């Protein structure tokens, strides 16, 4: 089945998400759709799978124009989407999720779960997608959940599969397996659309590439003749440097020392299990690991946002195990939280207000309980310039900035104090290439100035590029450590450790 998108335009109020986009999706082929966050990839695919109606343009299936008035219609036409955020009910079984909406029923609307399991097994055998139909979704690893999503669209006889950022949550090994699945589906004659912002992956898997920038197609071509540099330029609109330049690795003394640290989840399960490590000044420690292995709890514990159950944290020879977040701030620990929307900024506050969330009480900014707004605004304006926060004014609501500018705002706030230790959780998640470049520079700058830096990231490439030492977290433990002062760590070995295979 071939699908053509002709001149698709989709706007939300004044914002134009897609403008005159034309794409061909062909059976037996993987189309790579590349673009930064906010380039309009997801909007375009939501148009294709019937969630949005285009303002102009048409969709043709095998030459015939079609319109979808809802997701149901697109599914019926054979178009299936695997969403970036899985559309799975965690407390249902695999079979229940797969058949939802097209359930096998008996008399009295009776749901025939046995038949559903058999149907799932049939698909699983046909395409070699290993999964237990009766397992609860919430007990399955993310890679397997993704397989369930694929089975779900295959179960609806999809001929076109749209995969939206499918590798974002996978370990490198899971990505390899996932690519095997994609190839098998392609060879079975399915048309696939692979949406991503990762350059290496698209070159590896796509048969044809189209690049989207600011809602328009800015280039397309054959991956065999394209390089990551070409693609990045098409995606960003200017040449991009991938090289990270650092001063030679020269660590100082221990700055932050973590001994036998144990931290619990809200539900009293162990999040971090008796771990030990230290961060020296002038060093970047990278914590690698698949999301959900205790990294969040670790950073929160170090930032003073989560109770430490046992163990000690020492900072510059002071025991800060039970110090408050503010005490830690004042001692020079900066924290870039993992979820900037929820813990990094207050979206409805202005840029200036967000800029002083941590220092508003300082005598510089307030006296006798009153905030000196003119000084705050002035300082915020300076910070915005220094850290390249692009905002109409310091009075704009922070929530209206793009993700990259929100993150730069957080970085500006945290680094404009006198800091010696920086905790950065997922510092570039969901950002555009330009902002990533900038934030990486800032982190390395902090390290070159002699700060200790702890980076948590689920992007292995980022960890490898920045870190002097790499620790791998798995199920709350540090199961491997790699020296990377000269970039000598082996990506494959780190990836294996992320999957739980201790070296």
């Amino acid at each position: 089945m071939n699908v053509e998108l002709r001149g698709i335009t989709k706007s939300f109020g004044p914002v134009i998400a897609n403008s005159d986009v034309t794409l061909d999706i062909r059976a037996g082929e993987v189309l790579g759709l590349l673009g930064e966050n906010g380039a309009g990839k997801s909007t375009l695919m939501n148009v294709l799978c019937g969630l949005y109606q285009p303002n102009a343009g048409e969709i043709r299936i095998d030459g015939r124009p079609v319109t979808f008035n809802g997701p149901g219609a697109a599914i019926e036409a054979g178009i299936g989407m695997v969403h970036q955020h899985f559309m799975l009910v965690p407390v249902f079984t695999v079979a229940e999720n797969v058949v939802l909406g097209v359930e096998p029923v008996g008399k009295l609307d009776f749901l025939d779960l046995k038949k559903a399991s058999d149907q799932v097994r049939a698909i699983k055998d046909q395409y070699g997608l290993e999964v237990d139909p009766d397992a609860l979704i919430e007990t399955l690893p993310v890679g397997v959940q993704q397989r369930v999503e694929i089975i779900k669209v295959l179960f609806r006889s999809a001929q076109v599969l749209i995969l939206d950022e499918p590798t974002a949550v996978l370990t490198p090994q899971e990505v390899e397996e996932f690519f095997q699945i994609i190839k098998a589906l392609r060879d079975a004659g399915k048309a696939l659309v692979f949406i991503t912002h990762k350059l290496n992956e698209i070159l590896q898997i796509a048969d044809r590439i189209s690049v989207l920038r600011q809602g328009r197609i800015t280039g397309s071509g054959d991956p065999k003749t394209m390089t990551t540099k070409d693609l990045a330029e098409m995606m960003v609109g200017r040449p991009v440097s991938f090289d990270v330049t650092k001063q030679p690795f020269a660590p100082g003394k221990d700055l932050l020392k973590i001994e036998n640290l144990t931290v619990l989840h809200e539900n009293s399960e162990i999040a971090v299990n008796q771990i030990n490590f230290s961060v020296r000044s002038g060093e970047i420690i990278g914590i690698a690991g698949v999301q959900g292995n205790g990294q969040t709890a670790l950073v929160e514990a170090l930032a003073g946002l989560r109770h430490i159950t046992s163990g000690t944290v020492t900072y510059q020879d002071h025991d800060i195990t039970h110090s408050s977040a503010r005490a830690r701030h004042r001692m020079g620990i900066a924290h870039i939280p993992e979820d900037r929307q929820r813990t990094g900024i207050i979206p409805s506050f202005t840029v200036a207000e967000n800029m002083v969330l941590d220092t508003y009480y300082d005598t510089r900014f307030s006296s006798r309980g009153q905030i000196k707004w003119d000084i705050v605004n002035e300082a915020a304006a300076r910070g915005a310039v220094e850290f390249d926060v692009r905002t109409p004014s310091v009075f704009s609501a922070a929530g209206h900035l793009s993700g990259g500018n929100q993150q730069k705002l957080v970085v500006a706030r945290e680094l404009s104090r006198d800091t010696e230790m920086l905790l950065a959780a997922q510092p570039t998640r969901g950002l555009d290439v330009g902002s990533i470049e900038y934030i990486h520079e800032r982190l390395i700058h902090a390290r070159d100035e002699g700060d200790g830096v702890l980076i948590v990231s689920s992007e292995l490439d980022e960890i490898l590029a920045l870190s002097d030492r790499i620790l791998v977290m798995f199920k709350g433990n540090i199961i491997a450590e790699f020296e990377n002062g000269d970039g000598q760590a082996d990506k494959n070995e780190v990836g294996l450790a992320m999957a739980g295979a201790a070296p």
Partner: protein
Amino acid sequence: MAISDQTTPNIPMKLDIGEQRQARITGTVLIGLSILVALVFAMDSDGLAVFRLSRTTDALPLPNLAVPAQSFNYLVSAVLAFLGVRQFARGGARWTSLSLGIGMAIAVAAFLVWATAGKSFSLTGMLQATVVRAVPIALGGLAGVLCERVAVVNIAIEGMLLAGAFTGALVGSLLGGIPGLAAAIAIGGLFGFILAALVVSYRMDQIIAGVVINLFVLGLTSYVSSQVFQEYRTLNNAPVFRAYKIPLLGDIPVIGPMLFQQNLFVYGALIMVAVSTYYLFYTRRGLRARAVGEHPRAADTLGINVYRIRYINVTLGGMVAGFGGAWFTLGSVGRFDENMTGGRGYIGLAAMIFGRWHPVGALLAALVFGFADSMQQKLALLQTPIPSEFLAMAPYIATIIVVAGFVGRARAPAADGKPYIKE
């Protein structure tokens, strides 16, 4: 080509710290109960506590159950102490809840024995009243389950019960019992539909919408009953559905009077619980409804109409609550009094949570509350030294402890209370 299963399951790691804490708390509670039973109930008990299991009219009379009060209560105290110490020595997740449940039950038994010591008391009568009094709570809880399973928090159950009670009395007085009941169900359904419209279509805050309905119903029914019913008493004089003894089953000792010598409302509640369980957990529509409550966007992407399912379920919930409301008038006194539901709708919501958002769970939880209610009423006749108001409080306190003990594990539908906004 087969792709092997991944070897990195995100199975949560269990640590004993949380469990141990729970075990310690449970252990302390049990030992506290043990001391209470020994010092108060056992030392103060004398003679035999006689529990009557049958009435003289029963077809198959059972002999009375006579318990030597003091020995029984010392035994209970010993068992409680054993359970409590065991929690400290080796508490575990499953054992902790189970021990707490057993402990609570036998402590209540000890209390009853103490109160009855030297007298006699109709156990069957109390159990029968338990079921009767559980009915409005169970139906309120069931209405809550139907709504919250599709992620609509229904605080308005109280108002729906009250509207059902009022309408049942009014229409029942004018047209008779069956039309009264039908009208009560219809008015419940109407308020369910209104709630759905407010929170699903207009995305009004669910709590506020519910409170508004409660206040509206309370105000209107209070006004009419004090102004109109006082003048025209014939408008508030409805027939009552009598108990109907089911042949054979009704003759089983103890169980018979509890379950098979009851009126329409008890049978109706049991049937509704069974039908709802089948609907929610064994049908296609139920699967879709639960999907809407857990992950509405997932349901939407599969072409399921989230809004329509919410409308349907909330309206059904309203109808169940309307039926439950009619119990107050057509099922017991035949007359409407101001605010006669007295917060049973809210207790129904507690039963829903205690019952873990399951119809059967809500029913069982409602029976606990019904037991509390009927015990308090019967004990008032035995003239225990404790004022009956305090007796009425004790079981609720016990329930709070139990609910607090369970709270970590009971899980509400993931999207509960959140409006769904189509993109």
